[in-house]
């Protein structure tokens, strides 16, 4: 039975590509509905992490509960739930979408539809959401709303007359958007007297209250004191606080079907509030959980070492704290002959990896060395054993390997037609298998390729951007494993293997990568007292070689009028630099050398 309360609720999300103006639009909606006064508005209120604000990208907005007085005299509660606009977080997007009945599809009037927008729109259609296209930034001189409308019809198959023209920055079209939300998006269904089923679409860790789950109540109700059960684990907790987002968390009496809010239950760990899980009432449990819960395994792995080996414990504490808020981050102790003790970390994707690494450096003030990212390979040994391996260091001996398989991704690239040649060439170079091409409108094209994930994580985004002058966008979806001629490439410095530099590479790419790595190492390892050979090997075969010549000269000039102190300072500075290097055998390798092989450039 649907209550009047429920009929005045609208739950919606915003789907947008990075930079298409999602955060600004959210700000305007909040401002317009008067949750906050203009004075209280800090630009882009909902970007919660400094890092996001600084990069100008939004991984995820905080949810917000808006109260909107419509022209018909009714008061509506509008719950804005955000979707991350990045391929790393596709699963989270799908969970956010499950919490809504409708979505604003924000498209930049100067850019058109991007790959990620398309992917998320398809997801929204799969979830039967009502879509409201919003063509944003129409105030810009380069805006082409008609072109975008054409794309909306051709690509998305949505009637473009439904699109709202807007400029979030200038406050144009905001009323129309609010009216469209109320009139077009259906109210939430669900019986508030049925057994509780609440979907967790996000969570974070609060130092005082423990893990906080962001929920959409589908059926039933929840209040302080309710004994809840997590349906994926069966764990039971007592609710200590229930609240809504205004947009800061504000406690309330309870949440009922159709409502969006948060619950706290002295939960020690965010891994107990997994996104996608269903919360039910322990005393009156639902029979079935809500559909779609998955544990998402990490796709990209990299080892992280403290620059200063005495900071190992600090790194561990930092990772533990990050994990409290981010159940998708995994890590376990790792150690390297070259780099000492560190952690093997698993990430959802490259952006996720970048963010974690940057937060370690910025928020925890740690200097870290990271190894080249790796995907998870499937290895079948000659004895029939099947292994999933992400760390090249642990790879079995080639003679024990029957077959190797690598993950393949269905990839969609959207770009202006002028760059099609360049990007097809890039995809070919990256072992892509061409699947199709479609014109989105007169100028823009969608390319479909099957690309090995191993190639995508190796500088692919940068190459894509540089070869399309920043215009191409990529989305991918993991398809499965495929047998592949892979090989382990080792790097020897002064005859000694540097485990942290080993990578898995396709046989056809081995020579090229080997040469680039050797060259980049040669440039970043300073000349030392003896000649240092740098060799790249496959098994015992050397496939690339460079030499760092022996240091020829290292002298200080005269000391002027007895200024011994200055001389000493110069020597101390030099010595300090020496100390900061990693010793592999007799060779001192600076941090930059480890990092430089990660970014070898496109060409």
């Amino acid at each position, binding site marked *: 039975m649907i209550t009047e309360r429920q009929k005045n609720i609208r739950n919606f999300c915003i789907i947008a590509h990075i930079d298409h103006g999602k955060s600004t639009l959210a700000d305007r909606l909040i401002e317009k509905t008067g949750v906050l006064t203009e004075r209280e508005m800090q630009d882009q209120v909902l970007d919660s992490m400094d890092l996001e604000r600084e990069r100008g990208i939004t991984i995820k907005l905080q949810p917000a509960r808006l109260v909107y007085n419509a022209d018909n005299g009714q008061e509506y509660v509008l719950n804005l739930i955000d979707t991350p606009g990045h391929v790393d977080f596709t699963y989270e997007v799908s969970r956010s979408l499950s919490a809504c009945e409708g979505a604003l599809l924000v498209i930049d009037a100067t850019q058109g539809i991007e790959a990620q927008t398309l992917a998320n729109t398809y997801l929204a259609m799969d979830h039967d959401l009502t879509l409201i296209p919003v063509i944003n930034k129409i105030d810009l001189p380069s805006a082409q709303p008609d072109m975008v409308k054409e794309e909306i019809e051709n690509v998305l198959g949505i009637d473009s007359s439904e699109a709202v023209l807007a400029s979030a920055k200038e406050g144009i079209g905001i009323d129309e958007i609010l009216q469209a939300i109320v009139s077009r998006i259906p109210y939430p269904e669900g019986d508030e007297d049925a057994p509780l089923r609440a979907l967790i679409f996000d969570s974070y860790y609060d130092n005082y209250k423990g893990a906080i789950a962001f929920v959409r109540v589908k059926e039933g109700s929840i209040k302080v004191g309710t004994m809840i059960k997590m349906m994926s684990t069966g764990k039971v907790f007592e609710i200590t606080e229930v609240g809504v987002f205004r947009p800061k968390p504000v406690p309330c009496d309870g949440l009922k079907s159709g409502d969006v809010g948060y619950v706290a239950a002295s939960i020690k760990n965010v891994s107990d509030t997994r996104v996608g899980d269903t919360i039910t009432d322990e005393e009156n449990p639902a029979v079935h959980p809500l559909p779609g819960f998955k544990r998402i395994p990490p796709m990209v792995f990299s080892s992280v070492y403290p620059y200063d080996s005495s900071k190992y414990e600090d790194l561990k504490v930092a990772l533990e704290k990050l994990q409290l808020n981010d159940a998708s981050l995994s890590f376990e102790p790792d150690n390297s002959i070259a780099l000492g003790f560190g952690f093997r970390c698993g990430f959802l994707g490259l952006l996720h990896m970048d963010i974690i690494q940057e937060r370690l450096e910025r928020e925890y003030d740690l200097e870290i060395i990271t190894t080249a990212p790796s995907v998870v390979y499937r290895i079948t040994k000659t004895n029939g054993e099947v292994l999933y391996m992400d760390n090249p260091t642990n790879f079995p001996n080639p003679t024990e390997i029957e077959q190797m398989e690598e993950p393949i991704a269905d990839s969609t690239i959207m770009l202006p037609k002028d760059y099609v040649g360049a990007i097809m060439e890039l995809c070919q170079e990256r072992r892509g298998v061409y699947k199709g091409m479609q014109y989105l409108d007169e100028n823009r094209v969608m390319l479909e390729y099957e690309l090995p994930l191993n190639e995508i994580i190796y500088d692919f985004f940068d190459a894509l951007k540089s070869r399309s002058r920043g215009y191409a966008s990529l989305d991918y979806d993991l398809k499965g494993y495929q047998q592949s001629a892979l090989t382990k490439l080792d790097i020897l410095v002064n005859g000694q293997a540097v485990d942290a530099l080993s990578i898995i590479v396709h046989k056809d790419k081995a020579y090229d990568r080997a040469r680039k790595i050797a060259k980049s190492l040669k440039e970043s390892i300073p000349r030392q*007292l*003896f000649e240092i050979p740098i060799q790249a090997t496959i098994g015992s075969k050397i496939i690339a070689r460079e030499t760092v010549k022996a*240091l*020829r*000269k*290292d*002298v*200080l*000039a*005269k*000391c*002027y*009028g*007895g*200024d*011994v*102190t200055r*001389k*000493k300072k110069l*020597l*101390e500075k*030099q*010595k300090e630099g*020496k100390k900061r290097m990693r010793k592999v055998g007799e060779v001192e390798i600076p941090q930059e050398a480890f990092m430089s092989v990660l970014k070898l450039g496109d060409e």
Partner: protein
Amino acid sequence: MMGLGLYVHIPFCARKCLYCDFNSYQSKEYLIDGYIGAVLKEAYGYRNADIDTVFMGGGTPTLMSAGQISRLLSGLADTFDLKKGIEFTAEANPGTLDEEKLSMLLHSGVNRLSIGAQSMDDRLLKKLGRIHSSGVFTETFEEARHAGFDNINVDLMFALPDQTYGDWVDTVNKIVVQKPEHVSCYGLTIEDNTPYRKMYERGELRLPDEDTEREMYWNAVSILESNGYAHYEISNFAKKGRECRHNLIYWRDDSYIGLGAGAHSYYKGYRYANEQVPERYIDAVCKGDSPVVQREYIDRRNEMEEYFFMGLRLMKGIGIDDFEHRFGESPYNLYGKSMDRLLKLGLVNIADNRMYLTEKGVDLSNQVFMEFMD
């Protein structure tokens, strides 16, 4: 116990050279009289010190007039009761000396001249921003001899922009012909905050590569040695008995007093640095304040470091016994591992109870010095 070295800094130049990051200023000659007064006042604070060597450096001390020279040097002689037979050096730049000044220097007790020739190639001198030509150097040198200076050093620089190996050999040979008692050869370094640094960054300086630089150096060593100069310090060469005693004080890590703007002292276990800007230096001293702006106590550990990196600049190196005598412990106990490593790398030798740099060690001396630092 040996006496102290006395260094007097004259921070004035007719023109600042393009590579120079010394504490020296052009167009401030009007300060000289006041400056001399301040230096003498600062000197008075050390009046009972026992001085073994005096070195008046710069800048360009010979930018002072004969009268100014006389006033400064007689003032110093009065303050310190300078003994006969001490080494008393004045730096001089070609083009700033005349008969009157030479004779004044000589009569004020100066018995050693150090002339900044830098190069005998007029094209390169111009590039360095020097005010003199090779001809002017030769004149100055001959005048100094004529005036009675029988102990002269010539400063040379190598690895200059556009300098070829042949250019350098030519300069060294031209100097050898003059038969100075002492020659210094320093490789050009591009220092921060100099016009050369900016030019270097803009790619305007074509410097010889490292290999050529080393060849230049070792060739100078060979030419000078075959002409009877002993290679006694990394960059210094002297006829028998003509080593610079003042600089030996630095290299042996002994004590010295520095007077003047930006001068450094190592005195009673502390290293001091004076205010660099002449106006501020003069002000401070005249007001009766200390011109010292930096003071560092040199503890035993620091003293050892300095002892190594200064002492190893001498080609005969440091005496194992001397070290033990000074610090009360054998360097083998304290630095055995480092010494072993350096021996194995062929950077030092140990013989006759002394440790000294090998030729390879000379080229890579920083690597050796760093071994002895924390």
